[in-house]
């Protein structure tokens, strides 16, 4: 067997496991925690395979130079990537140690020995720890309030900085008239570099107060009107694009009798904590503490932006609030580096305001999908065509031809951020993620059209293109089922030979009592996908009541993630993903006016509230002998489609444009 990808550049046991503390095992993963519970699952894997107690394992903080380079923590791949690597490293160590102690070997020969991809792994039927709902290793400290989130770092001599951003995209600073302002003793400096403005102070209130005042006196060269809400659909249709055929087989007809188009707006990651970073210029070294999802790619991009050797930069990961994709975390790290340069030796903490978090971080791209199909006399789909348009889903650091941190587009010697690309297809793609249906259609044409102009910066948001692609496919299937008088569940099953897909569909129908009588104004709808067509299988049934607005009362979910490392962790991720998708699908829409995002507070960008949360029941179909698959994103697409399908059953209105607000429902009444 070949080594897992993560081990190619980190092939030694000592790259992954640290036995230098007698009796304890340090786990050196390149993946990072942001609330998904990954560190707990990885600890279970190592403890199981090494045969040591769970409590004897600890995580070595991810940092450049110490941790293996596992690129980004993204795409529901941590259990596959890091989990496989740690399992092989642990199995090799166990076989190598035999009757000797791991810690004795550490003191004598050491563990710089190659991991063996063919090491004999423990038989799943002998597992005693993998498969149990171990409590999360991070939760107790979070409940006590003693977790040091990135915002809570307090190194000696710390200074606090806040940033003043331009009024809209494209504006540049004309004049700040700093000489007219008397600075208080709490203010250390106002840093101005091109159109990048930072206030540095001894405390955060003083820094924020001065930023508010500077916003009133700064004069900007404003650009001609940028994008607006009303121009979005035209932009999506008419912008130049790169075409890629993702799948083509059978007969390709230009005209198919059934057609429909679906869309989603730009979406915000909308983390509850704002992005933060600390940086310090210590002689030749630059130290950075960041919540980034990819410390090595970030290091490379900051080095490129500063034209310095990446070896001068040392990055340590510190947990932030949940990020759900590429938010402003990397931007904040570069902000902190730019500001700290002015205070040699002193650490500087940059925290974004809520307004900047919602107004300037990258967004999940707005997207449009055009579907067409032909159904034969027996009610079977014979032809299927899917065309998806939108900006790419990655402006992550080091993935573009020039640096992609926000401040790089504002500083004197920087440049505009290039249009987003997409993750490579082996990682699941981006725009076209889940555009290929899992169903057995005889003739198929699937085309991705990634836009090459980017008026609003976009990047990875949980599930990437799968949110709209699955919403569209599963909505259209229901429309076709309805037009041909077929039950939506039966209709799916007749086109699906994949046995694990059939199992989750059958299971979720059983959980929900599919087909039962419901009161007037209520309805159940179904949604299904296999994430990236090679990850977890997930089927969702939503039940809605529609009166003045859509209210989701229940969600039933059946999921198959293969081998289950931690059932409660899987449930937490699957339900969390479903509720986040519910929030996007029913409520969320970034508002844009003349190139400025105006939905920059919680009133203008409302998200799901406690009183709107449905009851959720999740059933995991366990497959102990199958590879473990990620759970973080599998429920996103199916939940969105299930809700739209339920609304159609409840009030006979097909809503094809998200979010399913009263306005969009009214506009859909035919």
């Amino acid at each position, binding site marked *: 067997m070949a080594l897992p990808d993560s081990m190619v550049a980190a092939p030694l046991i000592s790259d992954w496991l640290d036995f230098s503390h007698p009796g304890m095992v340090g786990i050196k993963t390149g993946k990072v925690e942001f609330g998904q519970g990954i560190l707990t699952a990885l600890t279970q894997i190592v403890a199981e395979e090494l045969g040591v107690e769970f409590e004897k394992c600890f995580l070595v903080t991810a940092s450049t130079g110490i941790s293996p380079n596992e690129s980004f923590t993204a795409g529901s791949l941590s259990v596959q990537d890091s989990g496989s690597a740690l399992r092989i490293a642990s199995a090799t160590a166990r076989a190598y140690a035999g009757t000797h102690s791991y810690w004795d070997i550490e003191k004598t020969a050491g563990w710089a020995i190659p991991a063996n991809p063919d090491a004999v792994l423990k038989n799943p039927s002998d597992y005693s720890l993998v498969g149990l709902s171990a409590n999360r290793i991070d939760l107790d400290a979070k409940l006590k309030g003693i977790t040091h989130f990135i915002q809570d770092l307090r190194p000696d001599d710390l200074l606090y900085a806040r940033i003043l951003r331009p009024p809209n995209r494209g504006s540049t600073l004309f004049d700040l008239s700093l000489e007219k302002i008397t600075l208080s003793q709490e203010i250390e400096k106002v840093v101005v570099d091109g159109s990048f403005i930072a206030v540095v102070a001894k405390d*955060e209130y003083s820094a924020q107060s001065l930023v508010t005042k500077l916003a009133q006196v700064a004069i900007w060269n404003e650009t001609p009107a940028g994008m607006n809400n009303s121009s979005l659909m035209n932009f999506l249709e008419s912008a130049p694009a790169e075409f890629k055929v993702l799948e083509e087989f059978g007969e390709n007809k230009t005209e198919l009798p059934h057609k429909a188009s679906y869309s989603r707006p730009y979406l915000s990651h909308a983390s509850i904590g704002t992005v933060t970073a600390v940086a310090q210029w210590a002689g030749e070294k630059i130290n950075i503490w960041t919540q980034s999802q990819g410390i090595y790619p970030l290091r490379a991009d900051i080095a490129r932006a500063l034209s310095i050797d990446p070896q001068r930069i040392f990055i340590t990961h510190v947990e932030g609030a949940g990020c759900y994709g590429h938010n402003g975390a990397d931007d904040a790290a570069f902000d902190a580096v730019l500001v700290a340069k002015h205070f040699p030796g002193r650490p500087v903490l940059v925290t974004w305001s809520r307004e900047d978090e919602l107004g300037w971080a990258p967004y999940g791209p707005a997207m449009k999908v055009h579907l067409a199909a032909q159904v034969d006399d027996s009610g079977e789909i014979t032809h299927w065509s899917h065309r998806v348009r939108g900006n790419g889903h990655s402006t992550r650091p080091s993935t573009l031809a020039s640096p992609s941190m926000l401040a790089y587009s504002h500083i004197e010697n920087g440049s505009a951020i290039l249009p987003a690309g997409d993750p490579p297809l082996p990682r699941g793609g981006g725009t076209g993620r889940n555009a290929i249906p899992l169903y057995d259609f005889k003739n198929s044409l699937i085309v991705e059209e990634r836009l090459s102009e980017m008026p609003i910066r976009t990047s990875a948001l949980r599930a990437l293109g799968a949110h709209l692609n699955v919403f569209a496919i599963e909505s259209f299937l229901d429309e076709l089922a309805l037009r041909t008088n077929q039950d939506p569940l039966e209709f799916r099953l007749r086109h699906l030979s994949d046995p694990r897909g059939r199992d989750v569909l059958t299971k979720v129908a059983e959980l929900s009592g599919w087909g039962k009588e419901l009161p007037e104004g209520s309805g159940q709808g179904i949604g299904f996908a296999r994430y990236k067509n090679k990850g977890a299988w997930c089927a969702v049934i939503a039940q809605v009541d529609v009166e003045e607005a859509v209210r989701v009362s229940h969600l039933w979910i059946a999921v198959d993630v293969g081998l289950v490392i931690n059932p409660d962790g899987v449930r937490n991720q699957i339900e969390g993903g479903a509720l986040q998708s519910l929030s996007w699908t029913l409520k969320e829409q970034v508002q844009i006016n003349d190139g400025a995002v105006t939905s920059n507070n919680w009133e203008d960008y409302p998200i799901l509230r406690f009183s709107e949360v449905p009851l959720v029941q999740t059933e995991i179909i366990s497959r102990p002998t199958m590879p473990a698959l990620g759970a973080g994103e599998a429920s996103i697409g199916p939940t969105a489609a299930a809700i739209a399908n339920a609304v159609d059953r409840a009030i006979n209105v097909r809503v094809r444009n998200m979010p399913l607000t009263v306005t969009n429902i009214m506009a859909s009444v035919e």
Partner: protein
Amino acid sequence: MTHLSTTLDYMADFQIRVNNKVVDVDCDKNTPLLWVLRNHLNLTGTRFGCGTGLCGACTVLIDGTPIHSCDTPIWAIGNKSVQTVEYEENSTLQRVKSCMASEQAGQCGFCLSGIMMRATAHIDSLASLDRSSIADALDGHLCRCGAHNRIIEAIRQAGS
């Protein structure tokens, strides 16, 4: 252009009671309690989420009543008693924490400090512990990870 002075004319020495200890704080009188806790007293368990009282992350108790510390200036505290998530002597809060742990009620955990302070006040007010009453009590608190149902269940158990 108007001449703006940022000199803090109102620097003052405040004595406030936090977690049953009297502490001295020298700061602008308009400094929100949140930043007094986080920057001056190193009590970082209380979170900054929005600064405008719209997300609940910064919620603390003042004489047992939940308030947003992000828009409550220090001059308004007077001799009232402030309790934060770090306080270990509040038995209701301790029970909430223990039920949150047994329900594994959280993911990133950033919203939890504020939610637990609100839950403590809800339980102490002897309000109803049915699902919709707890959800209504928490409606000013945002959770982005989707741990809502676990949180509601943990609070129900803590109050029962």
